[in-house]
């Protein structure tokens, strides 16, 4: 006997061809789901690959790194090691971020010693093959090899001059060779000889770090030969700090895309259920002539696999296209938040493609399992009426709802009660959404009961009844729409809550009248030493807060350490979440303020102690308070300036916050403006910083907006497909209505009304679900991923908007089916068998 019958398969596929709409909509469900997942994955991996490539290019084959935590490494350490017999391969690196005059973004100026590079960075060395340039590179003060990103952005060719700015100091470099490699994305490096870099970065006698290639023997050797204060780190440790940067961001996006996939699965489930229910009599006939349930099941799954493959293929094409746009958005966000990456071309990552393909096929099969199993159980020659089917489906509704409730509760338990990481939070979130979706039909029925008590004109009453009657099918479409809408609500509420919190936090924090910084607020920009005295001398200045910043490696991440002298008003700007009894006194005595994410991650509470790495060995500090902070997910530490300067005496001033005497803000600004006229200082009112920060915030969540829109489109297609299929099934019914004298307009009204009702009901269920999702996102996901908390606030406007979007989607979806039904000639349908 055959494993499956080609004829039967052909019958199934021809059915789908005949009911093209159903086939297409099922396909689009799969395709869109796959497309979104793939697009997000491509965007993430594109941005990640771009970043990793530039890190990798910089790290080369190094396994370890020598550095002084929080400080620079003296030249002698390297030179002494280099002159020792038995030293392993070592390469000194000098690097920091610079700006290019007339170009946005930051670039990494990296100085290498060509002669030490051979074992380390072959790729970079490859670019140095034009010998005529190397001599210039080594002996001139301005020889430069720009990375691909800079080459592209500034359209550089060999011989061009480039003005770079480091801490206010401009330097002109000459492009020796433009890097036109198409595939090296994310390369925002400006490569110069180490002597050039030391001069530009003012790092004479110092190195950023030394790269090493070590085996266990040579590692032992190095440990014995390095002076105290110098630390040997593995590159893995080093990279962790950087690559972890965007893990949480990526996870958020991935979760959003999986949500879209979930909506897509509902579509497939919907479409498959429809097409199978419609073919019940066919299956009955087949059963009568001797087709076994197992054969039928195999047949349906096979059909689903073919649909899945086609849909997945289609989805992958759309996904690649969508991914291009999304990659740019993600790269922009990553650049805003973390590090400058540029993505030249979409990286078609094999793993992403495989993942999307497998996911598409599996999700389709999963969505088909239940309907297929039901269809296979069709008794032979069934003449079961549609009503009987509906009744069977209705009997299942409470069971589904109970199961859904359990899933929902399990989800809440997983996300909010049980301990676990951010993955657990997302698992809980999905469980919650799935549970809510399964409860949707019952919700509809309850809402429907409510509606039937309202007196409606006859035709409308019919619409309301129809919806209830067709619950087994429409329920799924409504659930799909519900999932999309609730995701939109959930993410929307979360973003709004966060926006509000960030705004409040910034407003409180930025309480000074004016901020002064060198060259904007760049890392490493320093104020001239004399400036502080000049400012202090001004009559109009009431108080000054001073800030000195550096990054510090702490437990595998790079946290910001800020040595600050905080004036009283500045202190009031800190929202202390918890503190010791005399927090500010403790701070003055050398205790630190920890940002919430850092305290959460390290599990520190006020009164606990913390070890900070310094050039003179570890420094033990006490935690005075934990403050609300959204500036960095890695954490920030405030330390009193006096203590700070004891360990980092060379560190210049980065920022000043100035408070004017009463009512003298304007004159203070004027005075400062005059003072700053001959220096290259930037005076920024708090409002401007606030504005810029909020703009960055909004840019960050633009990706989220796109994903919200996409999942709504998927849901829209779900409603459309449900209505189309229903219209197909009820063609005869409509024909009878038309024959009985229902006008076209009335028929259109009936169909649209039903659809709008679906949208309304979906939104009604979606709003509480979405709010619950937002709660989980804020209380669980945000905290576990980033370590910060925020007050939960629900904007009614957003909820109303969701309601409208639901109605709009349903209304739009009804247009074509209604038009088609109304414009059809009822006669032939009346005499169909």
């Amino acid at each position, binding site marked *: 006997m055959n494993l499956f019958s080609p*004829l039967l398969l052909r*019958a199934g596929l*021809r059915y789908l061809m005949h009911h093209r709409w159903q086939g297409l909509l099922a396909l689009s469900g799969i395709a869109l789901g796959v497309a979104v997942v793939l697009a997000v994955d491509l965007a993430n991996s594109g941005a990640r690959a771009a970043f990793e490539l530039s890190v990798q290019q910089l790290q080369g084959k190094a396994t370890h790194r020598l550095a002084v935590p929080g400080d620079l490494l003296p030249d002698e350490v390297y030179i002494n090691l280099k002159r020792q017999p038995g030293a392993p391969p070592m390469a000194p690196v000098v690097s920091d971020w610079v700006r290019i005059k007339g170009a946005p973004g930051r670039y990494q100026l990296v100085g290498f010693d060509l002669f030490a590079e051979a074992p380390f960075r072959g790729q970079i060395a490859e670019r140095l093959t034009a010998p005529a340039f190397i001599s210039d590179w080594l002996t001139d003060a301005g020889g430069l090899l720009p990375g691909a990103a800079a080459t592209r952005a500034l359209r550089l060719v060999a011989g061009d001059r480039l003005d770079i700015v480091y801490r206010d100091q401009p330097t002109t470099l000459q492009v020796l060779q433009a890097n036109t490699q198409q595939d090296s994305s994310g390369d925002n490096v400006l490569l110069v000889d180490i002597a050039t870099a030391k001069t530009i970065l003012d790092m004479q006698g110092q190195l950023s770090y030394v790269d090493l290639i070590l085996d266990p023997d040579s590692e032992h050797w190095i440990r014995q030969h390095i002076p105290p204060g110098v630390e040997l780190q593995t590159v893995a440790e080093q990279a962790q700090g950087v690559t972890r940067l965007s893990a949480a961001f990526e996870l958020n996006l991935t979760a959003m895309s999986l949500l879209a996939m979930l909506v897509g699965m509902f579509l497939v489930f919907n479409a498959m259920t429809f097409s199978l229910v419609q073919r019940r009599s066919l299956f009955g*006939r087949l059963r009568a*002539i*001797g087709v*076994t*349930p*197992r054969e039928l099941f195999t047949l349906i799954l096979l059909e689903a696999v073919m649909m899945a493959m086609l849909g997945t293929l289609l989805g992958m094409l759309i996904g690649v296209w969508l991914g291009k746009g999304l990659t740019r958005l993600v790269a922009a966000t990553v650049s805003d938040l973390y590090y400058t990456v540029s993505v030249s071309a979409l990286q078609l990552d094999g793993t992403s493609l495989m993942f999307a393909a497998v996911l598409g096929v599996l999700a389709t099969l999963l969505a088909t399992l239940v309907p297929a199993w039901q269809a296979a159980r069709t008794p*032979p020659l069934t003449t079961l009426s549609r009503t009987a089917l509906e009744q069977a489906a209705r009997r299942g509704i409470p069971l589904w709802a109970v199961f859904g409730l359990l899933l929902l509760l399990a989800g809440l338990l997983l996300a909010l009660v049980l301990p676990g990481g951010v993955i657990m939070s997302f698992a809980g979130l999905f469980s919650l959404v799935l549970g809510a979706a399964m409860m949707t039909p019952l919700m509809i029925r309850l809402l429907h009961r409510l509606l039937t008590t309202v007196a409606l004109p006859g035709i409308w009453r019919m619409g309301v009844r129809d919806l209830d009657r067709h619950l087994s099918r429409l329920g799924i479409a409504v659930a799909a729409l519900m999932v999309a809408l609730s995701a939109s609500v959930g993410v929307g509420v979360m973003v709004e809550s966060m926006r509000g919190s960030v705004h409040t936090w910034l407003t409180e924090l930025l309480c000074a009248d004016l901020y002064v910084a060198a060259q904007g607020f760049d890392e490493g920009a320093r104020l001239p030493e004399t400036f502080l005295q000049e400012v202090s001398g001004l009559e109009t200045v009431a108080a000054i807060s001073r800030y000195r910043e550096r990054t510090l490696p702490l437990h595998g991440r790079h946290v910001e350490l800020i040595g600050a002298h905080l004036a009283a008003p500045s202190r009031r700007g800190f929202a202390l979440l918890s503190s010791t009894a005399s927090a500010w006194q403790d701070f003055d005595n050398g205790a630190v303020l920890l940002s919430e994410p850092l305290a959460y991650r390290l599990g520190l509470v006020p009164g606990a102690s913390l070890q900070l790495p310094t050039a003179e060995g570890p420094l033990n500090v006490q935690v005075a308070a934990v403050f609300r902070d959204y500036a960095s997910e890695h954490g920030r530490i405030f330390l009193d300036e006096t203590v700070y300067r004891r360990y980092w005496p060379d560190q210049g001033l980065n920022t000043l916050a100035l408070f004017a005497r009463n009512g003298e803000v304007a004159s203070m600004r004027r005075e400062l403006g005059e003072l700053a006229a001959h220096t290259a200082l930037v005076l920024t009112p708090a409002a401007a910083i606030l504005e810029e920060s909020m703009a960055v915030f909004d840019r960050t969540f633009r990706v989220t907006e796109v994903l919200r829109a996409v999942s709504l489109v998927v849901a829209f297609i779900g409603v459309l497909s449900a209505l189309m299929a229903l219209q197909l099934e009820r063609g005869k019914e409509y024909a009878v209505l038309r024959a009985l004298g229902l006008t076209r307009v009335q028929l259109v009204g009936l169909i649209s009304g039903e659809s709008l009702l679906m949208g309304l009901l979906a939104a009604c269920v979606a709003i509480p679900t979405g709010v619950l999702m937002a709660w989980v996102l804020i209380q669980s996901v945000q905290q576990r991923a980033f370590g910060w908390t925020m007050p939960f606030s629900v904007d009614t406007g957003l909820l109303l908007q969701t309601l409208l979007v639901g109605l709009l989607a349903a209304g739009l979806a009804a247009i074509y089916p209604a038009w088609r039904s109304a414009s059809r000639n009822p006669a032939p349908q009346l005499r169909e068998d």
Partner: protein
Amino acid sequence: MLAVENLAKVYWSGSTRQVVLEGLTFRIRQGETVALLGASGSGKTTLLNLISGIDNPDSGSVSLDGVKVHALAEPERTLLRRRRIGFVFQFFNLIHTLTVGENVALPLELLGCDHASTQARVADLLAAVGLGGLEPRFPETLSGGEQQRAAIARALAHRPALLLADEPTGNLDEDTAGRIIELLSDLARQEGTTLLLVTHSLPVARVADRVLRLSHGQVAPAEEP
């Protein structure tokens, strides 16, 4: 060949008990054409469903060549239908998405016949029912009579031992009905297939070797027409 013993079937509709068949007993010999005459609602279709194992009796038994149909498990009953029984329905029940040729070929394919012999058999049968050359057409392009001819061809395709026909002409005009019923009985005889023909129409029953009358859940030999 077919032995029906004491067959009883009761349907419940709410709390109302409706006896459809009660102690039904009859036998049909190999190659015999038997017409089962009965009014609408007399339980004809129920009987056919019980004989083919689609439905279960409340008591009694059906034996096909000595095999008790209801002693078999569901999958075996399905295979029994596939191998030994052919169906002709009132509503032709052709599969719309398969061509006429494919409809006839389907039972053979389910039995795993090879392509060449299947094609030959399909061509022979369609020629025999007067549809030669119409293999690539879809059922909906055929008239009612032609569709039923195709259905007969499909029912005989796998040379079933027993052919069950349920009001095969109920949906056709009188002239066509007459021709179809003759075709059916002729072919059944040619193929040596036992034919159980269920109808409410006396003229249709005329082609049978023997006529049984079903009423009040009992079967009785009918007087010669």
